[in-house]
């Protein structure tokens, strides 16, 4: 395979950046969720009481 270094860099930066950004969003969401009553989170409505 040719250009292996470029491929690793390109794919690695893409997947790494998206993963770090996704994790950052999840962590920020967790921090904020702890400060806000469930009533302000409309996406919990479809989960029933088992997830609340």
């Amino acid at each position, binding site marked *: 395979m*040719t250009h292996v270094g*470029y*491929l690793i860099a390109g794919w690695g930066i893409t997947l790494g950046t998206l993963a770090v950004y996704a994790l950052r969003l*999840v962590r920020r969401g967790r921090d904020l969720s*702890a400060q806000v009553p*469930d009533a302000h989170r409309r996406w919990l409505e479809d989960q029933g009481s088992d*997830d609340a």
Partner: protein
Amino acid sequence: MAEEPMSPAPLPEGTASDTTGSRGSRLLGVLTLVGLAALGVLAFVLTDPDVRIHPSTGAEFGQFDAVRMLYVHVPLAVMTYLAYGLCAVASLGVLIRRTPWWDVTAHAAAEVGTVFCGLVLVTGSIWGRPVWNTWWEWGDVRLMTTLVLFLMFAGYLALRRTTGDPRAVSRRAAVVALVAVLDIPLVNRSVEWWENRTLHQQSTLGDLKIEDLTLFTLMLGFLVLGMVLAWLLLHRFRVGWLERAALDHLVAAAIVERRGETPDDELRRAVGDPSPGEPL
């Protein structure tokens, strides 16, 4: 006589609902990870490198394995258009409807779109080095219009972080987004409108000049990166919604606390309510 100070009910800690996830978003996340794995297998194992034979000299030429970068670069570019397009639609909603839903949507789409746009520039540069023998070409119209797009939305995000009346900031940001999004047609059509001023080739997708598994892999790239975009947008929207709710919750708590400390008439004067004698 002032009422007893009241605090908002304390929230239970560490419950399963302390996330921005829902059943739907978790399912989407799992499907996205499976899709990314499938895309990786197709891009690196099952598809062939781009190797062609020159008809007269018989020499090999083409992109060779660097073509595998395009399975993420091109979908990232299209998803950038989608995210910024959504930001523009939501910005119109901000200006017309003026509801928080549109505002949070516009902000989320701009942020996620800027992450994608940055990745488009980086992956394009990395792909360009072996194929064009350069990391960057200042005279390339598509590169420059894409850079301008990125910088305009970076400015949008900087504007969103400024202090001041939040409604005014939202309206100003909406106008910036609507101006910035006008660059997208320039980015997309630049290879045809200025075909002598770009290293990019013209589109080969519309004429289906790409064959078989390569085309399928590229289409899967669009689908999977679209799912990544949807997941990120969903969660970024929920974070933005929670940020507003947390601020409201904090303000409500501060008002309740202040109300407990301040006689009604004094509080009434502070907020400019000219109806003394009635409960607030």
